[in-house]
């Protein structure tokens, strides 16, 4: 059971800044690598991922399930899940 006291006292700003930093870092990195591919005229990162996904459909199904579970876990629960349900 998560002690919600800490969260309610407020680390939202810091925690959300961390989440944004991780997500933006991932996308900027991918964009930079793609930019290198575009400048050099090489097949893009997206092409590589699509090619991999065509060759590994079982992994793709697993990944899609994980991502959907993550989405449902985040927006399909109450904000304070443990407080609401314990």
């Amino acid at each position, binding site marked *: 059971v998560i002690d919600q006291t800490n969260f309610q006292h407020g680390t939202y*700003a810091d925690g959300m800044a961390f989440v944004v930093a991780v997500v933006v870092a991932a996308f900027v990195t991918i964009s930079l690598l793609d930019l290198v591919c575009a400048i050099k005229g090489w097949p893009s990162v997206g092409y590589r991922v699509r*090619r991999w996904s065509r060759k590994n459909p079982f992994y793709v199904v697993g990944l899609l399930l994980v991502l959907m579970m993550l989405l449902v876990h985040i927006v399909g629960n109450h904000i304070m899940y443990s407080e609401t349900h314990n």
Partner: protein
Amino acid sequence: MTPEQLDERTRHLSEKARGIAQRESVRWAGIAVYGLVTVGLAWGGILLILHLLQQPRNKCPDTSNLLPDPAMILVGLGAILLGRFLGHLRYRDSWEKTDVGARRASSSLGRVAFLLFLGLCTFALIYEALGEQQITVSPTPSFPGLAPITEYSRCAVYYDKLGGGPGWTVYAVVIALCTLVGHWLWSYHPPRDFGDQDGGSTPTGQGRGVDAATAEPVVQPQGGHA
């Protein structure tokens, strides 16, 4: 060669050179836009982080029924389908270079991207573990301890919907992420096979737009079916 033939050949070559120069200028314009988008993404992220760090450390009460929101899940599923069929509007499977060296370099970059992605996932999971344990070095009223990532994400949904709106920002993020996932992992169009990624075999030249004799791809404009 007669003077007429020479003139014709000169005209043909200059037209070809003009076409190549035009294609190059379009390509570099696209790269410039892409670069600006990348810089804008980084800049926007930094501004958002600075903005968040300046916010008061308010709590995030669950006094309303702002979550759960099944509509967001349905929109996410729809966006995955949208991403799958996005290739009808924009799809590209021809590249300026598909020789062995280019394929090998592109493959290496793909591996670097995957490595970085896994590294970030590991970093996030370590943070999640610390958040689950509410770790803090020296707890103070202003910084009592960490919380799990999902709690912060739900809190972001709460603040987005607090003004009475449906949570446009969250919808935009869900649509963007799920569309990308659907487009990359479940793409309707099969990517062309340029041969072994590591350069172990020669390009087949069987794909559309590739000269089978020279294995030199013909650059196709973006925006259409490949």
